[in-house]
Every structure is written in C-alpha cells, then in structure tokens.
C-alpha cells in the first residue's frame, strides 16, 4: 500500500541522508546528528551491557559504568518497568539485591521527578522554595552567557562539558551537576536559563528530571546549594582536564579552593 502523501519518509540509505532530510524538514533546528543512535536495537545493546554491581561502585566517576540508557528511558523506547525487570534478572543471575540497590535507587529518582511533574505541571519552571544562597532572585541574570554556550570560558572542564553537550547530547550526571553549579553559583545565572539550554541539547532532555535537578543545585528544591571544588572534580573526572587548563596553569581556577572559602565567596550570609 502506498503511503498517504503527508507522511515523512521512512527509507534512508545512510545516517547522512537522514541528517540531510531533517535539515530540510526542520531548517531552524541547529546542529547535526549525535553519534548516539536512537531506536530499540541500540537500547537493547546498552541494556545487555549494564552491570549493576560495577555501576554501584563507579557511577560517580566520569569513566564509571553508568548505563547511558537515559535517552531511551526518557522517550519510552525502554520503559522504566522494563529496565527494572532487566536489572532484577541480572541480580538473580548473580550479585543479589545488594548489588542492585544503587541502580534501582537511581531509577527511583526518575520515577520521583515524573510524579512531581504530574503534580506541579508547568509549575516545575518556578522555584519550589526560596533560594538558600542569601542572594535575591533578581540578582541572577536571565540569559546564559555566550562564552558558556560557545565553549570558550577558558576553563577546560566547562568548555569540554559544553562541547560534549552540544555535539553528543549526553553528559554524565556529575558533569551536569558541576556545570549547573557553575552556571547558577559562579556565574549567578537563573537556573531556568541553564535548564532551557540543556533541554535544547540533551537527548534525554526531560523537563521534570532536568528542571528539578537544576532546582536541586540552585537550592530551590533542597536544603542548601550544591557546589563542588577542584579536588572534587579531579577525583571524579581524573586530572587530564586540569592538566590542559590555562586557568589552572595561571592559578586562576575559580574552583581551586576549600569548601569553606567557596561558601564565603559565593553566598551571602543568611539574614539574621
């Protein structure tokens, strides 16, 4: 049966051809394809490769055994229930419940944010609670600074993350946290500006997980703002970023300080 005329094509000789077709269909959409492929087959491969025990031990490290399933879960290519079952099956085959606690817990985070979204609707775009930074909401800039979006902050870590976000559409959770903290606390930019930028690019871009994580970093959905320092970043990212960073070489790395010093530098004392 011939397709009705309004249908978009389903046959492509190559990814390059798909990309060219998409450029024609959506001329305003910036950039090109991600190296990460969509579809159930790609999702199945990642599901098979997932290793709950290694995940539990290494998930905070940029080169740790995270699943990279998020874009597929976000779009229901694999449902959260299917992933839960796949994890259970692996645990039954070896490792037992203990080996899977962490991964199941992280799946719980996704379920949690979805439930909050169901409850708040578009309210997830507004602060859930007052900021705990001592700064008024009005003192945060509305727009994302161009040097960040263009990966030319001069900070090797942030520029690498920005570039990875824009070219691949995926970032490790820790990189997302560091980047969000940098945007909100060091650059004093509204979390919404950062959240909008992430949603343009993340293949797993999901207003609930994204905005509420930004709010968690900003402190409008947590007890205190999230910050990090250079030694925390080097511990989980390795030292290669700092080794090639001009700011680190010149001694101007804004993260190279103790948590106490950073607290003092970044936040205003709470009103008495």
């Amino acid at each position, binding site marked *: 049966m011939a*397709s*009705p005329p*309004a*249908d*978009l094509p*389903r046959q492509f000789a190559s990814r390059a051809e*798909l990309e060219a077709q*998409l*450029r024609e*269909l*959506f001329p*305003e*959409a*910036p*950039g*090109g*394809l*991600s190296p*990460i*492929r*969509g*579809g*159930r087959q*790609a*999702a199945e491969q990642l599901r098979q490769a997932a290793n709950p025990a290694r995940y539990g031990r290494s998930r905070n490290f940029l080169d740790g055994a995270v699943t990279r399933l998020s874009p*597929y879960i976000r*779009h*229901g*290519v*694999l*449902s*959260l*229930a*299917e992933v*839960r079952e796949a994890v*259970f099956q692996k645990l*039954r085959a070896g490792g037992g419940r203990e080996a899977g606690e962490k991964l*199941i*817990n992280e*799946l*719980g*985070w*996704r379920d*949690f944010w*979805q*439930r*909050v*979204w169901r409850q708040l*609707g578009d309210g997830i775009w507004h602060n859930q609670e007052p900021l705990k930074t001592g700064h008024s909401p009005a003192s945060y800039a509305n727009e994302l600074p161009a040097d960040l979006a263009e990966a030319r902050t001069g900070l090797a870590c942030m520029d690498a993350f920005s570039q990875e976000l*824009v070219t*691949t*559409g995926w970032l490790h959770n820790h990189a997302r946290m560091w980047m969000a903290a940098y945007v909100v606390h060091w650059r004093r930019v509204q979390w919404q500006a950062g959240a*909008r930028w992430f*949603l*343009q*690019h*993340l*293949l797993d871009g999901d*207003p*609930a997980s994204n905005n509420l994580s930004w709010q968690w970093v900003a402190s409008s959905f947590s007890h205190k703002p999230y910050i990090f320092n250079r030694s925390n970043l080097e511990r989980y990212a390795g030292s290669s970023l700092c080794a090639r960073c001009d700011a680190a070489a010149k001694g101007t790395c804004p993260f190279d300080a103790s948590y106490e010093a950073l607290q003092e530098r970044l936040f205003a004392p709470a009103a008495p």
Partner: protein
Amino acid sequence: MKQPILWIHGEALGPANPALQAHPGRPAVFVFDEALIREQAISLKRLGFLYECLLELPVSIRKGDVAEQVLAFARQHQADGVITSAAVDPRFALIRSAIEHELAITVLEPEPFVALNTPANLQRFSRYWRQAEPLVWGGY
C-alpha cells in the same frame, strides 16, 4: 471503538507502549510538534534521535500541529476514535482535549515502575523512596 487509529507520542516510543500492545496492526501516527520545536529551539540531534526511534516502530511520521495531524490521519483511515497512552507532559492534556473535540479518545496507562498503596509523599526523594523502595523490591 471498532476502527481506531493509534496516536504514538514521545513518551512511549517502544514496544511497551500499551496502545501498540492492545491494538497491534492498527494504523499508528507520530507527529513532530512544530510549534514546540521552534519555541524551544530544539536541536537537530534530538529530532534525529526521535526519528531513529520511529524508524523501528510501525508508525507513520508527520509534522505540524499535533491534534490537527492526528485528526487528519484518523479521517484518512475512516477511524471512529483514537487510542493513545498516558503522558506526564502537561502539553499532552491540551492536545488530547483538542482531539477529543472531534473524536473519541481512549488513554491507556503504561505499566508503572511501582504502584504505591498510599498517596505519594513528594516533599523530598527520601520520603518518597521510603514508601516506594519496599514495593519495588517486592517484585524481586
């Protein structure tokens, strides 16, 4: 509904989609939401990812105003209703009621990650997880 079409949306692009499971073989459509894509300046890589997911599903792919396109697809197939799956995005509710204006629509619930037996406490994750964790592991 004797002759429904299926509306597949971006929260359910896999075989666990309850509409696809309940009505295999019925004509199905996915619509790229042009207004949303433009307003949020969604990058091409996100659209490409979705497109590749769709190429592995038995669906017609369209773009434009979602409700209009779903209704046009329904007319083409002389459908007497639309079947879809529940979505969390509040935009879904708007599109759903625009469709419902002209045609009956049934919304099927996907299998949940966990079914709670008390109202969820969503103040903080830790409180929610205290309720949910034992139930999740109950299935292990």
